[in-house]
């Protein structure tokens, strides 16, 4: 396994966690009620912790003297490799729930695999994350059910969020050259297996709570090459503001 490949692999995963963490942090003080506000922010904190660990490791493996902070605050939009799904905005509570729910299913499978690899750092990060993600799955699964089976309006809103976000799901099981190398080394499952896992879980869960899986087949692609929706730029403008205004500021 080439160190640079592993570094890129960790960076992709770390970027998705980081950007989702930022999205979750945006919900701080805006939750539907106090307890859920804290719950949503906690999900973000877990993801930020995972992002930090992964990006520290990515920077170390890269060996170019960059730190995790450099990766977070000094890369331009095209230098980020998070999934487009991760950057989608909190249009309403249902959008946030659906985004995190789908990403959580994906992450649970990713970390489960990584927890078993012969790399102490990565398997350690994954073993801790598996427990956190198991709770995310439980909490978000509860909301899918609650909103799906709730009122007419909650049902409509969550179905809308599912429909609108569906085109970003394809990236989660897309494969490029790096993915194939990681699969060969046992660090990732095949795109086909991931797709089967996601589809089986999502469709059985959704139909159980009176929701449906969209039929549309168009799926976006590009985040593995640093191509994003218009939303990432705004996230970075906010996240990197201090670094841009006062480069290398210290206090």
């Amino acid at each position, binding site marked *: 396994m080439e160190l640079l490949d592993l570094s890129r692999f960790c960076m992709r995963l770390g970027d998705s966690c980081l950007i989702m963490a930022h999205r979750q942090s945006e919900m701080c003080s805006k939750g539907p*009620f*106090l*307890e*859920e506000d*804290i*719950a949503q922010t*906690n999900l973000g904190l877990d993801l930020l912790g995972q992002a930090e660990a992964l990006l520290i490791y990515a920077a170390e493996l890269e060996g170019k003297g960059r730190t995790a902070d450099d990766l977070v605050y000094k890369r331009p939009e095209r230098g980020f490799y998070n999934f487009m799904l991760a950057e989608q905005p909190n249009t309403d509570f249902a959008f946030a729930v659906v985004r995190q729910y789908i990403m959580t299913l994906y992450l649970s499978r990713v970390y489960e695999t990584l927890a078993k690899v012969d790399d102490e750092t990565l398997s350690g990060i994954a073993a801790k994350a598996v427990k956190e993600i198991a709770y995310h799955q*439980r*909490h978000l699964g*509860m909301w899918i059910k609650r909103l799906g089976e709730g009122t007419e309006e909650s049902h409509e809103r969550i179905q809308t969020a599912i429909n609108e976000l569906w085109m970003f799901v394809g990236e989660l099981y897309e494969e490029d050259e790096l993915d194939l190398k990681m699969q060969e080394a046992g660090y990732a499952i095949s795109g086909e297996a991931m797709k089967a896992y996601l589809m089986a879980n999502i469709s059985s869960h959704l139909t159980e709570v009176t929701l449906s899986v969209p039929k549309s087949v168009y799926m976006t692609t590009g985040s593995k090459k640093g191509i994003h929706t218009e939303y990432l730029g705004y996230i970075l403008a906010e996240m990197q503001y201090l670094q841009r205004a006062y480069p290398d500021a210290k206090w």
Partner: protein
Amino acid sequence: MSESKDTQGELWEVFLQTKKGLPFKHAGSVHAYDKEMAIQNARDLYTRRGEGRGMWVVPANAIVAVDPSDDSSFFDPADDKVYRHPTFYELPEGIKNM
């Protein structure tokens, strides 16, 4: 006067156990609409820093409490009867959590 409507759900009291075998202690309260949400909200508020290994949530309206105005009739009579307190025993060494 218009009554302000609480839209945050019912109130639940949260009890935490720091270690298996120890008594559950009151930690605080949460709002939630049902049992499942109550236990998740309680987890998010009270157990994120290793505070517990066990947790109960109880609907606040299921708790029967002593009316504060009855304080004296409930609690004061024990004050002057020292023999009711186990203060004459010496605890053997090695006994914890007493």
